[in-house]
């Protein structure tokens, strides 16, 4: 840079460095208010962070406790199922590094591979029984139902009667195989009424 005192740049620099300009308004009050605002904003931020952190903590704790309650029965079911235990064994064995354990597991694998049908049978049997249990037995007709109804206390009769009605409605929709068999076997007993419906007269006392 040319530092000669005879150039414009030097004179500009000199003038600007030497001069002082008084502010036209009260800048200090604005600086004070701005710096105070900055401080309060900081404290507010901290407070909001605290609130947010507390909320997250309580929510997560609540969620963990709630999910734990939900998961407990599922875990029990998993423990009771023998098929799953058998399936889990090889997976666990992969985590063990020792060669002996690997050999043992390979043997177990081989045994399992030899009897896949047993496994499948074991796994499938409970399912089938469950399915069977789920379906309503349609045979529960006149006698048993009547006996059950008589045993039920008076308060629950109304509700039970409703359920019987719904079952009757279902019967109308589908042909009961037992009634179909009955109608074929005892053709002689069935008579047609005036209304057009088939009625079978059976003497219960003879049985």
């Amino acid at each position, binding site marked *: *840079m*040319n530092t*000669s005192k*005879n*150039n*414009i*740049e030097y*004179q*500009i*620099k000199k*003038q*600007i*460095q030497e*001069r*002082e*300009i*008084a*502010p*036209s*308004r009260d*800048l*200090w009050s*604005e*600086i*004070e208010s*701005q*710096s105070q605002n*900055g401080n309060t904003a900081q404290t507010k931020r901290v407070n909001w962070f605290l609130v947010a952190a507390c909320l997250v903590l309580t929510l997560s704790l609540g969620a963990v406790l709630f999910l734990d309650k939900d998961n407990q029965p599922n875990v029990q079911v998993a423990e009771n199922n023998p098929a799953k235990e058998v399936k889990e064994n090889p997976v666990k064995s992969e985590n063990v590094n020792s060669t002996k354990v690997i050999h043992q597991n390979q043997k177990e694998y081989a045994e399992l591979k030899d009897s896949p049908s047993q496994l499948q049978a074991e796994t499938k049997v409970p399912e089938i029984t469950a399915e069977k249990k789920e379906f309503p037995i349609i045979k529960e007709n006149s006698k048993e139902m009547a006996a059950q109804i008589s045993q039920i206390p008076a308060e629950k009769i109304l509700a039970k009667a409703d359920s019987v009605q719904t079952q009757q409605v279902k019967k109308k929709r589908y042909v009961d195989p037992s009634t179909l068999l009955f109608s074929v076997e005892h053709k002689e007993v069935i008579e047609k009424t005036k209304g057009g419906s088939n009625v079978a007269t059976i003497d219960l006392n003879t049985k």
Partner: protein
Amino acid sequence: MKLLFNNKKEDLLSRLKKQDPAAQRIFYDQSVKKFLSVAKSYISDIYQAEDCLIKAFCKIFKHIESFRGEGNFEGWARKIVVNECLNFIKSHKTVFYLDDVHASVLEEIHEEQIVFDFNAQELLDQLPDAYRMVFNLYVIEEYSHQEIADTLNISTAVSKTQLFRAKEKLRKIYFQQQKKLKNEHL
């Protein structure tokens, strides 16, 4: 006497670091006029320059912990004022940097005998923003072209051309003013 003065300065600095409002007020009173002069050399409008100065003072007080005692504290604070002014210009105005000038032309500036009865601010106010920024940084703040290039995100070549054009323009404005003054006297 000098030791006492230095001790006072160190005491003020330590109080400023503790965010002491009384110390802040003292520092403001000591430096506001100088800093406003600096801000005015970048921003011709006095109200905008004052707004920049308010922001700069807030930054100085807020980030005073980052001053590690390397160099002069006033110089550090002055740098914040300059940066605040540059940021204001960048954000509020579109700055155009003109193309490169041939290197040989840069050396052809010849000094002429000048009568120094001019107002520096009047000359600076007539410069375009790009010229004024580079000129002030180079001449007043004594930045190198590399430093100017870094702060303004331009190349050193552009910085050099802006300085050359700024000087040229200043001369033109100056001689025009001189002509006018002569005519008025006649």
